[in-house]
């Protein structure tokens, strides 16, 4: 089974307005055939709106969507032929697993023999052979999820849209299904647009991330780029926890900024022109507990220590009262005075 490949899906200034609220403020995005793209953001950021616009379930307020140059935003969903996996799975409750999976094929009047063969294949692919004659209500959440995926991919759609498909599952199953989705993508090469609010999920699954906020694209990039080099303060805060230390900028050139925090000078990297009053974003695991004085060090007092197995999660406080979260292998105790060093390239200075 392999999807009908396309070269390029292009969203050109796609806008969507609900009454007075602008859900999507002119989204530009190009998706290449075979890619796994995640739309990431908190609720209300417009990610599901974007997905529904792609599926044809919501008409656009403005802009256009083209597939290899052919305009598709004026087609109804049944004419686009994109597969969609819904958050609540939307399995047809009155049909068996097989009939659910074969629904799209029978709508297309696929000959019986071919329908049987393709349903067999899809059911096998998601490992539901022993449940294929059951009804959705008799299946567990993870199994329903597999049916929803099989139903969407059996048509070998050029594009698979997934709307937070893992959010209704428990933690263990979520990890298992995540791997499953990645495995299916790797083996079938179906172009996928995946909507989620979970940055870990997005990082794990996607080839490319689109971070959204209030209907606007903040950053588009590979998981590594977005994780390690966020372009602004919002993305930095959203992609995993970062300490936001208030600082005063004393000097800056094209790449670096020298800042004062807690009476100490720190050097960090920047991706935008920063104002005098800024924040330095540092991940808890980028701090190293050191003994000697040196460049880029901060003095702090340990307040709370949590044991997390191999490492400890430490809450420390700078002299000016700023709280810091630190993850370290060193064994510390509350009240310890510590010195923390952070590499220059791990101090991200944002306005």
């Amino acid at each position, binding site marked *: 089974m392999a999807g009908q490949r396309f070269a390029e899906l292009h969203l050109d200034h796609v806008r969507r307005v609900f009454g007075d609220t602008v859900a999507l403020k002119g989204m530009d995005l190009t998706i290449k055939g075979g890619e796994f793209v995640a739309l990431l953001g908190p609720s209300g950021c417009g990610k599901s709106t974007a997905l529904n616009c792609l*599926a*044809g*379930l919501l008409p656009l307020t403005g802009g256009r969507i083209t597939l290899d140059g052919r305009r598709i935003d004026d087609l*109804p*969903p*049944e004419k*686009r*032929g*994109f*597969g*969609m996996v*819904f958050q*609540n799975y*939307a*399995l*047809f*409750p*009155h049909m068996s697993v097989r009939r659910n999976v074969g*629904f*799209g094929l029978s*709508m*297309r009047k696929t000959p019986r023999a071919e329908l049987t063969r393709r349903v067999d294949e899809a059911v096998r692919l998601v490992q539901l052979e022993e449940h294929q004659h059951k*009804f959705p*209500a008799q299946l567990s959440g993870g199994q329903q999820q597999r049916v929803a995926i099989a*139903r*969407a991919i059996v*048509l070998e759609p050029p594009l698979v*849209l997934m709307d937070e498909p893992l959010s209704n599952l428990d933690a263990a199953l979520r990890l298992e299904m995540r791997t499953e989705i990645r495995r299916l993508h790797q083996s079938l090469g179906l172009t996928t647009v995946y909507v989620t609010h979970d940055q870990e999920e997005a990082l794990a699954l996607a080839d490319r991330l689109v971070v959204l906020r209030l209907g606007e694209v903040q950053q588009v990039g590979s998981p590594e780029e977005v994780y390690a080099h966020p372009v602004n303060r919002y993305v930095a805060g959203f992609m995993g926890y970062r300490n936001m230390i208030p600082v005063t900028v004393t000097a800056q050139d094209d790449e670096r900024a020298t800042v004062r925090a807690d009476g100490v000078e720190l050097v960090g990297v920047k991706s935008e022109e920063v104002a005098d009053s800024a924040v330095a974003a540092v991940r808890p695991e980028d701090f190293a507990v050191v003994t000697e004085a040196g460049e880029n060090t901060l003095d702090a007092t340990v307040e709370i220590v949590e044991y997390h197995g191999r490492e400890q999660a430490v809450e420390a406080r700078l002299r000016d009262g700023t709280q810091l979260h630190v993850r370290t292998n060193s064994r510390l105790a509350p009240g310890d005075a510590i010195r923390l060093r952070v590499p220059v390239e791990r101090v991200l200075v944002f306005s």
Partner: protein
Amino acid sequence: MTALPSLRDQRSLERASLKHRLAEKGVDRVLWLLVPGAVFVVLLFVYPFLYGLQLSFQPKGGGNPFQNYITFFSDEYSAETVWITLRLGLPAALFNVLASIPIAFRMRGRFRGKRALTTLLVVPITLGTVLTAEGLLAFFGPTGWFNRIWIALGADEPAKLTHNYWGVLFSLVITGFPFAFLLTLSYLSGIDPTLEQAAATLGASKRQRFRTITMPLLAPGLAVTFCLSFVLAFSVFPSAVMVGNPAGETHVMSIAAYETALRDNDFAMGSAIAMLMALVMLIVIGVVLIWRTTLYRGATGGKG
């Protein structure tokens, strides 16, 4: 040293466990709240029904306990009421249910003026049969608006739409439709709209979505709606008198029962006719509900 629990404590422990044991068997004090309702049903439904049932087996002249039933079916005039009533009740119920589907389907979403439209569709419930009948007489009568327009359009004589079968049917539709509509709307709102969206993304056209998703999930609800609409229409009485022809074309079972019991003072025979009415309704409902068991009746994934 551990103190032994006092006798009193032990008793209170046992009392607590008795309540627990009862709860295990599904007995709950809250069930007492059902008593008023149960008494109400027994006094006002079960007793009168059973009284009528036994009365129907005691014909006025004595003799064969089934004599009333034999008389009913051997007299063509009374036997025909079964057919007359079915001929009114079945089409009225069927029309109300079928007409409510497309309207309810359109009324699901949010749109401007929805509340006003719903009110307009539901208002006939509040009118009462008598007012509806008067309106029908005025509107569809020989000199009513309808016939004036009808004549003006070139008809030779006024259409006869009152004091016959059609008048009663119109009346049943006007009063019965709001019930059918409200029920259908609530069943339809209970179907998760993402199911239709999912079907659309799988390539199903509007018509295919309606046929393969909406209709199968709605059908059990429609069966119930049909049964209720039918019961409502089958027991037609006032409109059969006022806009019908109660001695002939619309001599329905309820009129026959009323006349026998209160005009001819034959309560036993009247009861027998009432029992037969119940029997015919039960047969129709039974057939519909048996058909319903062949349908999918589980969750429809909705929030309503």
